[in-house]
């Protein structure tokens, strides 16, 4: 199980940052990051323990955690959106997506097979929701410094992560049969994207120091 891969350390660092800055974020929408990041760390360590120590498949764990991640980020963005269209869209996702995931798990791909369908839809929706965050940040008629906007950093991390994952997710069904020499390179890109995502989350939490409270 040990040493843990570097991406888990980034996730732990993000969680610790949320603990350190708890006083600053506890009355803001960022407070949800603390339990979420704890959940991510627990899932990653548990997944690794199941695979490395118990030598058992851990796919079922990610079939639960990955949709929850999508739902969490969507929920976080829903608290930021001001435009009715964006709010309606994200609320629709929050209602329809879990139902669809359940249907997919129960009737289509099964609990113990990695569910690629929700990855495709999920990462596409994350890209869309991040773009909506960017649009709202762009359209605002008040002064907004993107570098001190926590939601901007979260959206940047998530946008880059899902942009990098999107092709992989789209081709996931094909590649699992024909995945050859590109795997190593792709995994390298993927790992770097995890670093990018959690670094952006860490910056988002730290930037709450400078952001006005009503904007965090």
């Amino acid at each position: 199980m040990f040493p843990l891969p570097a991406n888990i350390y980034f996730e732990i660092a993000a969680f610790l940052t949320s603990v350190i800055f708890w006083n600053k974020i506890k009355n803001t929408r960022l407070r949800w990051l603390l339990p979420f990041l704890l959940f991510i760390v627990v899932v990653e360590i548990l997944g690794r323990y199941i695979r490395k120590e118990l030598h058992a498949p851990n796919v079922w764990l990610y079939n639960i955690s990955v949709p929850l991640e999508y739902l969490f980020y969507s929920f976080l963005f829903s608290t930021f959106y001001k435009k009715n269209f964006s709010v309606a869209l994200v609320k629709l996702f929050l209602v329809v997506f879990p139902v669809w995931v359940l249907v997919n798990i129960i009737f289509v791909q099964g609990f113990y097979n990695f569910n690629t369908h929700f990855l495709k839809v999920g990462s596409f929706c994350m890209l869309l929701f991040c773009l909506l965050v960017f649009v709202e940040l762009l359209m605002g008629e008040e002064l907004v410094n993107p570098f001190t906007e926590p939601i901007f950093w979260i959206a940047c991390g998530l946008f880059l992560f899902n942009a990098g994952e999107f092709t992989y997710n789209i081709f996931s069904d094909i590649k699992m049969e024909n995945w050859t020499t590109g795997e190593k390179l792709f995994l390298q890109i993927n790992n770097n994207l995890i670093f990018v995502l959690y670094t952006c989350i860490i910056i988002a939490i730290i930037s709450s120091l400078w952001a006005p409270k009503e904007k965090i």
Partner: protein
Amino acid sequence: MGPKGEDIDFTIIYLTLGFLLFALFVIFFITIYRLRLNRHLKERVQMKLKFDHALLQTQIEIQEHTFKNISQEIHDNIGQVLSLAKLNLNSFPENTEPTVQTKIDDTKHLVAKALRDLRDLSSSMHGDKIAELGLQAAINAELRILQNTGQFTTHLQITGNTYSLDTQKEMVLFRMVQEALHNAVKHSKAKNIEVMLQYDPATFSLSVSDDGIGFNAAKLQVTDTGIGLKNMQNRAALIGANFELNSSAGNGTKISIQLKNSTNYTAQGI
């Protein structure tokens, strides 16, 4: 590994890199656009502030001009007429009828009082005279007028080593004091009115307080007092001063103004 497998590998890798580059471009574009928009918004806000400032200054200049005209009219016209009336009354021969003589004497006193009041009013309205007198003397004159009515006890307290502020700032401050005194007289039912001037080297502070009925400042609507207070806030903004109002029902009213001493005078009693 067949050619098909390699094709898919490269397709995935190139598309991934393509998407990542696109994402980076989007983020870069948004950041640059937002920063430019911020600069544009800042410029717009500054232009609006400048415009508001110029508008306010013009309003105050017009007001000062009007005050000056009225002051001159009082002095040159009504004042002259009353002086003539007083002269005529003084030229009356002594009347043997005591009641008539008493009435003439009372009228002389009334005309003399009207003349004095008009002179006070004229000088308190005339901006140039205020500039000549200086802030403390001008405020003192205003308080003396109130004191002379017999309805108020007034007090001017000065602390610190005094220095002169910019003439225009003194004029604006004086008008604010006048507005506060006017409000106190009209609405407060106060007995005591106090003006405090505090000359710290870095900050000049002024406060006008009364022991009247006070009011709920939060509920103040666009009444006469509300407009007066708004005027005071506007005037404070014009000279870059902080304006604060403290009042509650039954506890009197206090307005405080703090202004940074931008002159190079130090505490030398200038």
